């Protein structure tokens, strides 16, 4: 049985011998330690799967339902996650990333308990559960659904306990503070020892190296935000025009929304620059000198620049969130969408529409910057969402370097992590109202490019999937802070700072053989810039099937769907 794109990081051995798995794809799914008998005694092997600082709160035997085959196992609730551990399967120590059956508490979107015909949503620990659940349904925010039926026969109290434990644990976890210091074992250990290959952009040296790499001669690294006193959502260092003094930077930035003034994102070898900045601060009353400072920073030595209103033609945050919710509803295993209406239902989510508008806009800007050699300033009021998305896409389209494995990681680190994309808020972890998976939208855009340019990217779709899944796993700080400032508060406490650095791609994945699958077989490193008539037509956009579905085609060993 091939467990789809997601189960790879967790080595799962089926109970009974099945024909070879994973043959249909490039994946090398490993099988490891198979426990021989079903042991309801959790004992040591369960605990051994725990992460440092993780505690088991409750557990109950149950059967995973909904997908064939049904699996007997144990539902476990810890202070970090809810996990279903099939009988006879053992978590591999090599793979700290989440498995198909791991639900990080914050990833639980909806909880339902079922008994007979009644179906109750479980919200707060206070809301009483009036019956012993026969079944529990855990809806993940990441398109998963785990359905576990509890065993009858004297074990009902356990079923009740574990259900209540999940409700409580989840309620507690919604206070985001609890991430402090939690890290998954392997990832944590390896990052401290050597310098990560991907610059985390927390030191001015990193920025300087990066600047030189881009050949941005007219720019320098400004330490003006070293104490986060210009903007907490900006990194400590960023690039400003060489001739602009730090005092002018401070003065100019004050007139932008949340202090996010114009900074260089990318320097095109042909001489043009790509800048990003926030909206003008409406209440400000700049004097002449301030205006001159702002102008000189925007122009950065170019005689004329193009100011792009980022939100123009792009979906709003609400649109993105709504589309994502619809897409999720459509792709969940229990989706009620009729088979013959699948395509129009998919169209109805408008998700692909939004992907298209992002790609189109990015490719227009890319033409400006590269072929027309014009400098472009991306302006978005908050400068923390679509600016990052567009700027990253433009670089992916125009700079071959960004399409390598390391280059892409470095791009994400620069344009998203360091630039202060509010990951926590956007992914709905904080419970604030501004949930909108802009980063996931970006990943889908990249996936589409991957489909259209199969030989231009060093990484494969599995790499994107890993990023997608990691966005909700509290193993590193990469995606678990809203601002560099908050992230900075945590570093130095032994917590790995980046998923993008050593841990993900080099330690975890290479340890399990997954590294191989994140590398694209078709990648042709010699090619240069991509053609730019990218993604104009929805016909060329695929629905991202690997990432949104978990039921892949099967080889021998399970009965075909639709019988």
């Amino acid at each position, binding site marked *: 049985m091939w467990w789809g794109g997601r189960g790879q990081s967790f080595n799962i051995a089926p109970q009974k011998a099945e024909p070879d798995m994973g043959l249909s794809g490039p994946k090398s799914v490993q099988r490891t330690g198979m426990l021989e008998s079903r042991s309801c005694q959790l004992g040591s092997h369960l605990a051994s799967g725990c992460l440092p600082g993780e505690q088991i709160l409750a557990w109950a035997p149950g059967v995973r339902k909904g997908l064939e085959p049904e699996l007997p196992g144990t539902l476990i609730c810890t202070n970090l996650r809810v996990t279903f551990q099939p009988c006879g399967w053992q978590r591999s120590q090599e793979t700290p990333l989440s498995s198909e059956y791991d639900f990080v508490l914050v990833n639980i979107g909806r909880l339902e308990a079922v008994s007979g015909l009644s179906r109750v949503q479980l919200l707060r620990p206070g809301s009483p559960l009036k019956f012993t659940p026969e079944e529990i349904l855990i809806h993940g925010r990441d398109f998963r659904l785990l359905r576990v039926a509890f065993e009858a026969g004297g074990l009902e109290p356990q079923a009740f306990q574990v259900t209540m434990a999940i409700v409580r644990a989840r309620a507690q976890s919604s206070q985001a503070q609890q991430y402090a210091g939690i890290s998954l074992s392997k990832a944590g250990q390896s990052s401290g020892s050597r310098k990560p290959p991907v610059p985390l952009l927390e030191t001015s040296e990193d920025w300087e190296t990066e600047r030189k790499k881009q050949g941005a001669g007219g720019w320098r690294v400004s330490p003006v935000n070293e104490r986060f006193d210009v903007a907490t959502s900006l990194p400590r260092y960023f690039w400003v025009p060489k001739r602009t003094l730090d005092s002018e930077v401070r003065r100019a930035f004050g007139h932008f929304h949340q202090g996010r003034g114009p900074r260089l994102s990318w320097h095109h070898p042909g001489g043009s620059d790509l800048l990003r900045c926030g909206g003008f601060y409406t209440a400000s009353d700049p004097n002449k000198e301030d205006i001159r400072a702002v102008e000189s920073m925007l122009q950065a030595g170019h005689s004329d620049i193009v100011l792009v209103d980022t939100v123009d033609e792009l979906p709003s945050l609400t649109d993105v969130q709504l589309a994502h919710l619809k897409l999720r509803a459509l792709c969940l295993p229990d989706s009620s969408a009729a088979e013959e209406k699948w395509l129009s239902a998919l169209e109805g989510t408008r998700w692909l529409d939004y992907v298209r508008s992002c790609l189109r806009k990015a490719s227009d800007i890319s033409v400006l910057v590269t072929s027309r050699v014009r400098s472009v300033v991306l302006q978005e009021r908050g400068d923390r969402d679509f600016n990052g998305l567009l700027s990253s896409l433009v670089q992916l389209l125009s700079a071959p370097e960004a399409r390598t494995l390391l280059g892409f990681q470095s791009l994400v680190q620069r344009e998203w992590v360091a630039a202060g994309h509010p990951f926590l808020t956007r992914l709905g972890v904080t419970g604030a109202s501004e949930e909108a998976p802009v980063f996931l939208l970006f990943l889908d855009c990249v996936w589409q490019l991957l489909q259209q*340019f199969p030989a231009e990217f060093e990484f494969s779709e599995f790499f994107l999937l890993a990023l997608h899944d990691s966005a909700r796993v509290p193993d590193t700080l990469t995606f678990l802070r809203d601002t560099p400032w908050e992230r900075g508060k945590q570093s130095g406490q032994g917590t790995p700072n980046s998923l993008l650095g050593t841990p993900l791609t080099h330690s975890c994945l290479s340890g399990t053989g997954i590294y191989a699958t994140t590398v694209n077989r078709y990648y042709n490193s010699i090619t240069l810039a991509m053609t730019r008539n990218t993604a104009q037509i929805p016909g060329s956009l695929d629905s991202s099937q690997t990432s949104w*579905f978990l039921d892949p085609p099967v080889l021998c060993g399970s009965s*075909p769907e639709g019988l």
Partner: protein
Amino acid sequence: MEKSSSCESLGSQPAAARPPSVDSLSSASTSHSENSVHTKSASVVSSDSISTSADNFSPDLRVLRESNKLAEMEEPPLLPGENIKDMAKDVTYICPFTGAVRGTLTVTNYRLYFKSMERDPPFVLDASLGVISRVEKIGGASSRGENSYGLETVCKGIPNESWRITKINERYELCDTYPALLVVPANIPDEELKRVASFRSRGRIPVLSWIHPESQATITRCSQPMVGVSGKRSKEDEKYLQAIMDSNAQSHKIFIFDARPSVNAVANKAKGGGYESEDAYQNAELVFLDIHNIHVMRESLRKLKEIVYPNIEETHWLSNLESTHWLEHIKLILAGALRIADKVESGKTSVIVHCSDGWDRTAQLTSLAMLMLDGYYRSIRGFEVLVEKEWLSFGHRFQLRLGHGDKNHADADRSPVFLQFIDCVWQMTRQFPTAFEFNEYFLITILDHLYSCLFGTFLCNSEHQRGKENLPKRTVSLWSYINSQLEDFTNPLYGSYSNHVLYPVASMRHLELWVGYYVRWNPRMKPQEPIHNRYKELLAKRAELQKKVEELQREISNRSTSSSERASSPAQCVTPVQTVV
């Protein structure tokens, strides 16, 4: 399959069109060697189609006569034997994407060629006449066209104790749309076959398509029984089906898969056809697969064409695609084949597949099920054999379905049946990227030459006709061309899982429109980056690594066995990597 005997005629372009006079051709005495693909060079298109198309074509176009200087440069390169029938200068071609272009239009006995030096690079429209489906008053648009020839193969391991090869159809007297050699249950004598044939539509009796090497479960194919309104029965036919069931000791049941929707099957009774009643056929279970007929499919493709050409409406792309029902039909066909494969593999039960005549939907189902069941057919040569066997020898009516050389573009017998089959194969290659030896280009090439008429493979309606026309002598087989440049068609990721049964997911969520085929003429849909060269590089790399493995293994065996005589050969058979030829 053995290497083709006539590769010498291959690399070169097919030789000239010597318009054959149809009647003078010698009769059906073609020799069918059981396991080979053979070819001889010869004519390309029948004279019939050439003259018709040429005559129809030029007068209808808007020809603006003026002086010309560029015309010489605007002539087409000619194939051997090709000659120019007519030429018109200063013709305006109205391109749906780039607007009007002026240039020279040439009609030869093979193609329609338009070239304009106005643009840089020169604008060229090159279409073989076979591609032209219809000519109208204005504009010279082209769309799909038509048809080429074959040979045959018989299952491995036959005859055995339950099955025998019969030559009863040697002269195509039992059934003129079946091949000369048939595999039938061993204990049914030829005399009885004739009586079975009289009960089956057009004499297409149940014959063996595939036999499971272990369980002996079989796939047999036929046409509908001539039950009629009165509910006729045939003792011989019932006995025949019982014999098919008995040949498989694993199961006491047999499944009859009727590809049609049950309504259509019932409706066929009025025309004398129908389906097997479970009363008459003990131990048989009848299943309808709900696949629609050729007319529904043709209409679906027409709608598909409308939404992809010339313009694509962006905002409603997916719902428009859905409204064509094309993917839904693809899904039903795949799902049907899946059920057949599952019954044979998991149920160890023999199956009988038919539709009405047993040459359209039946061919789709049996060939797809065989692709799922048997890794041999997923190799390049195996796939060629599959097409030769299930499609060409069992009389899929290529001529009729494609309509080459036929003026009547609205003929009700046209239908994209074979195209659908290839689409289904493509869907399978998407779901199992490493299970097929061939790549997408292979499939596109086959479809292109369905219409190019450069090869004899897909000409005519049956083996019988192809024999009569002496096509194997007079034309080149498409397979010869393909086999002479395998590296173009090889999937570098092929892993040869020949012993595995593939169960593709037949769900709308997993099916995609084959944009690389249907929408490839839309300039905005041009592949952004053909990965063809990358394929070749990967193949070269694999061959190189393969060689290294062999060297190392040789080295090891040299070291371990000090005797020099054993050092040479054993390495080869252990090689884990699939050899690329």
